[in-house]
């Protein structure tokens, strides 16, 4: 598919701030499943910092905005050609060994319920089949309902609630996979919401599980599938915060509000 993205994040500050510092993971990953045609990130009043590819293969770019400023707009626009690799992250270069992704973090820490959920993979025929079973179990256990959870909800809390959004599904998937001994990570990106009537989040998140012999394979419990050509992958991490497309901080004292719009469209090929 040929997908276009228009993603605007607007930060508004109650009182002008002296400076804004951000770290972006907003460039599509380089692997066989996607190819960038054009891609631009702009930050209003922003000074670009050094850019580099980190050990997980993500393009990271720092930005700073000099104050006083009461509003900062981060705009991402571009087009990406995608192909369906059935979730396999083929041709992705990275230095971090998969084993690093066995370590849990606060939002992905397994409680008794998550440990019990991970038993769904028992008797699976190998890690790939185990991961599929786990993704199905997570989808069954956590219903998609926007507003039920918040940015800091943990996998354990979402499971107890039985409701959540893609972030919660991804956290839960990562947690149960790690319990089952499979390296797993959180992935952030975009999803083209097609006309199938399902409620999707265009700014999306899913999980990847490391399967020996195959490499990293994506699983999207929120949509009961593996990422295909409707997905654009940006970056990964141990959890949502670690994989966040934008991490930022403002030097100031007032309140901060955030407004995000994301449009992902399919273009004629």
């Amino acid at each position, binding site marked *: 598919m040929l997908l276009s993205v228009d993603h605007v994040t607007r930060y508004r500050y109650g009182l002008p701030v002296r400076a804004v510092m951000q770290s972006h993971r907003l460039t599509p990953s380089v692997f066989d499943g996607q190819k960038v045609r054009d891609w631009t990130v702009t930050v209003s009043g922003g000074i670009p910092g050094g850019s580099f590819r980190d*050990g997980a293969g993500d393009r990271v770019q720092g930005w700073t905005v000099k104050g006083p400023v009461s509003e900062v707009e981060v705009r991402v626009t571009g087009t990406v050609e995608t192909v369906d690799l059935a979730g396999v992250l083929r041709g992705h270069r990275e230095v971090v*060994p998969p084993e690093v992704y066995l370590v849990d973090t606060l939002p992905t820490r397994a409680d008794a319920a998550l440990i019990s959920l991970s038993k769904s993979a028992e008797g699976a025929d190998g890690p790939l089949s185990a991961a599929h079973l786990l993704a199905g179990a997570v989808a069954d256990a956590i219903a998609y309902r926007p507003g039920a959870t918040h940015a800091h909800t943990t996998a354990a809390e979402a499971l107890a609630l039985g409701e959540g959004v893609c972030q919660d599904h991804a956290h839960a998937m990562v947690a149960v996979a790690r319990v089952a001994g499979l390296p797993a990570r959180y992935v952030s990106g975009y999803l083209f919401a097609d006309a199938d009537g399902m409620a999707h989040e265009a700014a999306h998140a899913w999980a990847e599980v490391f399967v020996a012999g195959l490499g990293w394979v994506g699983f999207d419990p929120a949509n009961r599938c593996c990422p295909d050509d409707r997905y654009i992958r940006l970056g990964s991490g141990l959890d949502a915060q670690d994989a966040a497309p934008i991490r930022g901080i403002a030097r100031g004292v007032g309140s901060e509000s955030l407004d995000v719009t994301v449009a992902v469209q399919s273009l004629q090929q």
Partner: protein
Amino acid sequence: MAVGPGAVAVTQYFNEMYQGGKVRPPYARLEDWMKAMPAELRTLKQAEAEDLFRRIGITFAVYGEGGDPDRLIPFDMFPRVFTGAEWARLEKGIKQRARALNAFLVDVYQRGEIVRAGRVPSRLVYQNEAYEKAVAGIRPPKGVYSHIVGIDIVRTGPDEFFVLEDNCRTPSGVSYMLENREIMMRMFPDLFRENRIEPVEKYPEILRRTLASVAPEKCSGEPVVVLLTPGHFNSAYYEHSFLADLMGIELVEGQDLFVEGEFVWMRTTEGPKKVDVIYRRIDDAFIDPLCFRPDSMLGVPGLMDVYRSGGVTICSAPGAGVADDKAVYTFVPEMIRFYLGEEPILQNVPTWQCGKADDLRYVLDNLSELVVKEVHGSGGYGMLVGPKSTKDEVAAFRGKILADPGNYIAQPTLSLSTTPTFVAEGVAPRHVDLRPYCLVGERIELVPGALTRVALKEGSLVVNSSQGGGVKDTWVLAE
């Protein structure tokens, strides 16, 4: 010499001054000095030393112990002495170890050859809480992660030295090495005329040169080096300001620095000044809220992006802690063989990993004979010295180990050497250790001296200042 109830046990320790009733050559002149000093003079001198320390402002705040945060660390006037030959061997061993530790760090953040070769277990490295995924693939300037390697060494015989642990992050205490010397020279100038003692006062200059030698590629001209401190509430704040002062560099806190564009800048009265090298005394978790702990107020937002894109050097490099973990320690001799193709000059203490079932069984069966430490512990907290503990203490510790075996390692109780130390009754042997500070940059350097810590309590083997330890001036005699 005063001898107490511990005297019987003490005879089995190596006494660095006396052997077979005879004084060892490096201490010959000190024996005369000691004998010639009347008790009144000694009391007077001790008071003078304390006064000097207090005037200089060197104090040591101890975490979690309450009491006077500005209390002085006890200073013992009796120097500890090494011959030039003894030191030459130690120096070779220390530098060898510092080279291997840095080679290990470069390796595990790149291809991890030592893990692939099966020489170090991968879990120990990649699931270590000190492993920083954020710096994987990053090669710091000159391939150095740990620029100041503090290696804790104990002696058990004339030629027997063992490494207790490595400190690759930000080892503290070097200010005591410098101050102890300064104060001894002021109080006993004659001693320094009678003995040919190698100087240590070049340390700050060498440290500064070492830091400047690892300036990032994007730096042109004379590098600007700063020392980043968490602030005056930190227990080592005195040392931070002392070192910055001696090096002639700015002492800054997180709020004095900011990131703009590709660089880190320091606020000055003449406007922003670009910073090239940061000698940080802040833990990884706190140096950048955009990369590590988001609630940290001590760090510099955006610092890690500048570091990783080559705009600034951070010393020690983030992630260096994976080499000085007490479980990884076991494999340092392996690192020396693997990276340098050499045999270790300094030996490791045999170590049992409680995370391994066989080792755990041995440790539990021999708890009252062993020293047990937390893998990530420091400062002498949370450890058990079996032979010095009561039955109840041992039993309580057994419970702690069983609750989380992987968090503990155990070592035999070493017969730490003793050196003469001034005590209330006169002079008596007390156990000591040694912490040299090896500097690694473009070159690898070691000043002929170190911090000697002394367990002031009779019979005690715990030298940490937080546990009633004191310090001594440490001499290396010129050959």
